[in-house]
Structure formats: structure tokens, C-alpha cells
């Protein structure tokens, strides 16, 4: 059997249903085998989007997403997508063609050292040199991508390895000496954590992206309710806890709610679940610790413990298992402090900030659009975002009610992620609406995915908060660079409605809140991708926010 055939067979054995990709000389043999295979191929217009689509598919399905490209420029175009998935711990398997083994290192046409390039931005990468290695390589790739802390894995396949035949052995499982993802949490650490939480005066939970990856929503909610501890989420963890729950304070950090940022500095014990303590979540590290807060850190990745902050009690393992065990111990011990005073304080701060928001006037503003969008969308709608002000507005004003329905590029902050990720999400979940909350700059970066969305009949909704500038950068120039506005004006080009139409999608421009509601209703019924262009003021700022490098307490309110 040829290497190419073995690859397809191995992918089938991993139950791969869809591949996002774009062919080229060095991967044609595999594409030829795909012709007869019962695997859907979705043709992209740029390989970056193939990786983001696989990523969106993976985040929603919690299975590995697969993307495939040719060697050289095809492979290098994947880099942003791989780095995005790596930073957000998303399992994707990327397959790249490579020049024949005899040409490797000769600067052959379309040769690039993608193994060297992708090493720091993948969880693992492999380049089989003999076709007989392919079945095991594929098995390893899926195993590594989806277990432990998930991440992208790249398989680089030289052309001759695809062509040549060998006797193939398809393994059912794989063991790797240096990789043991099944860590059982230490019961004594859980017991200590339970004691610390029960005796806390002002406990708080910070829920990170790993809670979504581990599908540990119910467990998290049960622990929070038992402890009567308010819950803040990191931006990656947004929507890991229902944002309409009385204990929810919403996202913390740079994109966070002011009440979350205020109250976390008043907590005495913090249970951080599957969060990597990003500077975007907790602000300047020294200031965060200076509050005297005691930290319990539960995470599947031991290298996250004390990477950025000292921790009082580390618990390593799958957070779903940890939270289940923790709840058992908590219930058994069952002597908890009276939390009335703390909860009153929480309510007081919440009211203080939430009453500030004035949404009365008729004029279109980003916060109003997002609040309206929440009203109009069914609660199971999957939402992605682009990067910039649109992302921060979504964080602040779009409440996620059903856990695990919100996805953004939070680690790398990749403009152009949201739209292809939405397409990938829609492929994984065709029966729920999928919406990308976009900025005009970001959408422009991967707008060519409109072709894929239309031709492959994967209808998603794009809501562009169109300020005709690189908004987040413009906001910084206004606030910190004395209004020296360089390189931010997008001149409202292209016309997003015409652009959508040029690709065969539906484009709607709205000038009022009423038109916006109508457009969303229309889009929800449409079986073609709809781009809703919402012109907003180029001068609108996002508030509150925490300036990078400063402490949470120094958040800028307005």
C-alpha cells in the first residue's frame, strides 16, 4: 500500500470526517487518494483559514480538526493558525506535503523546513522518512493532539514517502515513553484545598479555558454553588460558567467586568481552575500577589504551576476529575464559614458598576449592538470573535448563557481568526446558528473564506462592528499617543456589503437598532452566509479596560 493510501486509511481509523485544505504539488498524491475516500474535503482560499477552521471545528466538537496543505508556501501559510491553536490549547492535526527525501536540504523548489519552523508552535511534529511509519505517525498525532493539554500536531510528509509502497501495520493504540497524559490528582492536595476553601472568608473561583476543554461546566457550577463562591472567568474561560448565574461576575482582566476586577483584589482565597495566569487575566503579577490572596491552582499541565505566580496549593490533573473529587470532599467536610457578608459585598460592588451603564439613547453603539444580539440569538448559538475592540466589547457586553458556546483567539490574539473558526464550528455543529463578531480590519484578513462558506454551504453570520479603523490601535493612539493617528484609517474600504455579494453571500447594512434586529432575524433564517455591516463611530472607545502592564485595580473606567 502506498504511503498516501495509508495516510487516508489511518485518518479514517481516527474517524476523521472532514479535512480543511488546499492542494499543491507536494501533496497531490494524498489528494488523489482522498478522491475515493469517504472524507469531506473543504477547499479554503488561504491556508491560514484552513488551520483556523480546523481549530474552530476542534473547539466545538472537542475532537481534533484536520487541515492539509502543500509544502513550502502552503506550509508556511499555516503558521499563524498553528500558533493560534497552540496558544489556546486546541487540538489540530496539520498535514503538510514536503519535497522528496532526496531533495530535503537542497533548497529545492517549494522546500521549507516546516519541522524547524513549527517546533515552537506545535505540541509535536513528525516527518516520517519511510511509508511504513505512516500508520503509527498518524496514531501518535491524534493521541498527542487530543490528550493531556491539547495542542496542534504537524505531520510533514515527503513526496516519495507518499508515493512509495510498504507493508502497513495499523496500530490500535500507542504508548510514548516521554508522554504520560493521564495524571491522577493527588487526594491530599484536594483535601488541603477543600480545607482552605471552607475556611476562607472571601473565596473566589477563577475559571479558565481548560474548563471548556475538559467539559467541566457542571462540576464547576456545583463547586461554586456549594461554596457560595463568586466566579470570574479568564477571557479564554468566558462562558465556562453561565453569565446570568447569580454567582457570575463575568470575565476578569483586561477585557473584564469592573466588578470582577475589583472583587478579585478583595478575595482571600482563589481557586484557579485550568487557567495559565495570563497577564491579560490578572494584570501585573506583583500587584496581584501583593493583595495577599492565597492561590489554589488546578491544571492538567504541571509546567503552568508557578510559571507566572507563586501558588499555595497546586493540584495537577484533569480539572473535571479534580472538581468532581473536590466536591465530594467538600460535601463530606461540610463545615463552611458564613458567607453572608462576602456575598453582600459582592452584590454591592456588582450593583455599583452595573447601574452605571446607560443604554437609553437611540443611536447605535457597540455595547447596545451586543446586548441586542444576545436578546436575538438562541442561547445555544456559537459565537466567535475577531480581535480588537470588537473582542473586548463582546467580552464585556455579550453574556454567554450556555457554557462552551464562545470562542476567541485569546492567547495569540489573531485578527482573522473569528470568521474561519466560525465556519469550522458550523461544520462541527450544523444545526445551531454560528455568529462571528467582527471588526472591519480583522474580517478583511480572512474575508476570502466567504468563498468557502458560500460554495460549501456552511452559512454563518458575521456582524461587523464597522468603525472603518483599526479600532483598538486607534483607541491607544487617542489615549496614550496624543492622538497621533498613524496607520489606522481603513477608509471604509472595501464596501462590506458589496464584498459579501461579490462572493455570493448576503450583505446587509444597518443604520438603526431596528434595522439591526431585522437583519439578525433575516440572517438566522437564511441558508446563505450573511454579513451584517454595522457602521459605528470611529471614535468609540472600549471601557473599562486594564492597560497592559498595569494592575487590575488600576483599570480605566472611562
Amino acid at each position: 500500500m502506498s504511503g498516501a493510501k495509508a495516510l487516508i486509511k489511518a485518518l479514517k481509523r481516527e474517524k476523521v470526517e472532514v479535512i480543511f485544505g488546499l492542494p499543491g504539488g507536494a501533496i497531490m498524491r494524498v489528494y488523489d487518494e482522498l478522491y475515493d475516500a469517504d472524507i469531506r474535503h473543504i477547499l479554503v482560499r488561504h491556508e491560514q483559514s484552513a488551520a483556523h477552521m480546523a481549530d474552530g471545528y476542534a473547539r466545538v466538537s472537542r475532537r481534533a480538526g484536520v487541515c492539509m496543505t502543500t509544502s513550502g508556501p502552503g506550509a508556511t501559510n499555516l503558521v499563524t493558525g498553528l500558533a493560534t491553536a497552540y496558544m489556546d490549547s486546541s487540538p489540530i492535526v496539520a498535514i503538510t506535503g514536503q519535497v522528496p527525501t532526496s531533495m530535503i536540504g537542497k533548497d529545492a523548489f517549494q522546500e521549507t523546513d516546516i519541522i524547524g519552523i513549527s517546533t515552537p508552535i506545535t505540541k509535536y511534529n513528525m516527518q516520517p522518512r519511510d511509508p511504513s511509519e505512516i500508520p503509527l505517525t498518524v496514531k501518535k498525532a491524534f493521541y498527542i493532539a487530543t490528550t493531556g493539554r491539547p495542542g496542534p500536531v504537524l505531520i510533514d510528509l515527503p513526496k516519495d514517502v507518499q508515493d512509495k509502497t510498504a507493508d502497513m501495520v495499523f496500530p490500535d493504540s500507542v504508548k510514548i515513553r516521554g508522554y504520560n497524559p493521564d495524571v491522577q490528582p493527588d487526594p491530599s492536595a484536594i483535601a488541603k484545598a477543600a480545607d482552605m476553601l471552607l475556611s476562607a472568608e472571601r473565596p473566589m473561583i477563577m475559571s479558565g479555558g481548560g474548563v471548556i476543554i475538559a467539559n467541566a461546566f457542571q462540576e464547576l457550577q456545583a463547586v461554586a454553588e456549594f461554596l457560595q463562591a463568586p466566579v470570574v472567568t479568564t477571557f479564554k474561560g468566558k462562558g465556562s460558567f453561565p453569565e446570568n448565574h447569580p454567582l457570575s461576575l463575568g470575565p476578569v482582566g483586561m477585557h473584564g467586568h469592573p466588578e470582577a476586577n475589583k472583587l478579585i483584589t478583595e478575595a482571600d482565597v482563589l481557586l484557579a481552575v485550568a487557567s495559565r495566569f495570563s497577564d491579560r487575566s490578572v494584570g501585573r503579577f506583583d500587584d496581584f500577589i501583593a493583595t495577599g490572596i492565597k492561590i489554589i491552582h488546578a491544571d492538567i499541565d504541571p509546567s503552568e504551576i508557578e510559571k507566572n505566580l507563586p501558588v499555595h496549593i497546586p493540584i495537577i490533573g484533569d480539572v473535571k476529575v479534580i472538581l468532581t473529587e473536590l466536591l465530594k470532599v467538600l460535601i463530606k467536610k461540610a463545615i463552611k464559614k458564613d458567607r453572608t457578608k462576602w456575598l453582600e459585598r459582592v452584590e454591592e460592588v456588582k450593583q455599583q458598576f452595573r447601574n452605571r451603564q446607560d443604554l437609553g439613547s437611540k443611536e447605535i453603539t457597540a455595547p447596545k449592538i451586543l446586548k441586542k444580539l444576545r436578546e436575538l440569538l438562541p442561547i445555544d448559538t456559537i459565537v466567535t470573535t475577531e480581535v480588537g475592540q470588537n473582542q473586548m466589547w463582546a467580552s464585556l457586553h455579550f453574556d454567554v448563557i450556555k457554557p462552551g458556546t464562545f470562542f476567541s483567539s485569546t492567547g495569540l490574539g489573531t485578527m482573522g481568526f473569528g470568521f474561519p473558526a466560525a465556519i469550522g464550528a458550523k461544520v462541527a455543529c450544523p444545526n445551531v446558528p454560528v455568529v462571528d463578531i467582527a471588526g472591519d480590519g480583522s474580517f478583511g484578513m480572512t474575508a476570502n473564506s466567504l468563498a468557502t462558506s458560500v460554495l460549501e454551504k456552511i452559512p454563518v453570520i458575521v456582524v461587523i462592528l464597522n468603525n472603518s479603523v483599526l479600532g483598538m490601535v486607534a483607541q491607544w493612539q487617542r489615549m496614550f499617543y496624543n492622538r497621533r493617528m498613524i496607520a489606522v484609517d481603513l477608509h471604509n474600504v472595501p464596501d462590506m456589503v458589496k464584498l459579501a455579494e461579490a462572493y455570493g453571500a448576503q450583505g446587509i447594512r444597518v443604520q438603526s437598532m431596528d434595522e439591526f434586529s431585522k437583519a439578525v432575524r433575516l440572517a438566522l433564517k437564511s441558508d446563505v452566509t450573511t454579513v451584517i455591516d454595522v457602521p459605528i463611530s470611529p471614535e468609540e472607545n472600549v471601557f473599562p479596560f486594564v492597560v497592559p502592564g498595569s494592575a487590575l485595580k488600576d483599570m480605566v473606567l472611562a
Partner: protein
Amino acid sequence: MNKMRIISTIVENKPGVLYKVSNMFRARGFNIDSITVGTTEKTDLSRMTIVINADEPTLKQLVKQLAKLIDVVHVDVIDPQNAIYRELALIKLNAIETKSRLEIISYANVFDSKVVDVSTEHITVEITGTPEKIDAFIKIISPFGIKELARTGVTALTRG
């Protein structure tokens, strides 16, 4: 407070692993003082001995990052008190006059090192030992004029 740390790792013996290990150090901003690689008693495994200068939290983080690499099978921090650790140095010295030749040879004897090459202008000595011993030897003989110097970096095994 920084000090010399010896990390001993067992890694898969295959292409690219040294790159993955050293690149992890670079990408995370850690400095490597020395790194040695060679085969072990098992042909499919290599031992990498890495010497760094770091405080305790940095060392801990480094060990975790190393352990996280899939091609790294095992990581140990070696306590110099409880280990045999050695480095090899080859030192080519200027030695034209008979007097300096004799002096070099006698110093070499004191340090238990060997003269491995002699020409009309140079003498090359080989010395193995702890980095401190090699440092001391270099200090003593440098007045003769060092033409070329090559050190391997430390390799180590725990005692017992």
C-alpha cells in the same frame, strides 16, 4: 541567588531532538551554559547533560518545561554533592622555549592531565575533571599563552 545547576535528561535518540530541547531554552529566554549529548547504555536513548546558572524557581520551571517535551523521557536535577561530574578540555599552549616546556609539563603532572601533542611551537594538554579544576588549571597555565582552547561542557552521573 544564582548558581550552577546540572540537569540530566534522557531523550529519544533521533534527529531533531537536540534542536527541540535547545530551542525550548531559547524560546523561553533561559540561557544554557553548556550542553553535552551522547548515547547511553540503550541505543535508542541519549543522555543530555545541561548546565545552567539559575535560581530555584527558574530551575523548577525549566525542569517542568523539559519534562513536557514529548521526546524527553526523563529529567533529573543532579546534586553536585552526590554526583560524579566531569568536563574535558584540550588546551594548546605556546611553548617555544625549553624552560616553558618543562614548566608546562610539570604543571600538567600536578593536575593529573596529559600532554597529548607536541610541536616545535606548541604543546597541547588534555585535562578532565570538574569545571572548577579545569578553571584552576587554565588560570595557572595561561601566562604561557593559550593559543587555542576547547571545553566539552559537563557530563554527569549520580553516585551509587
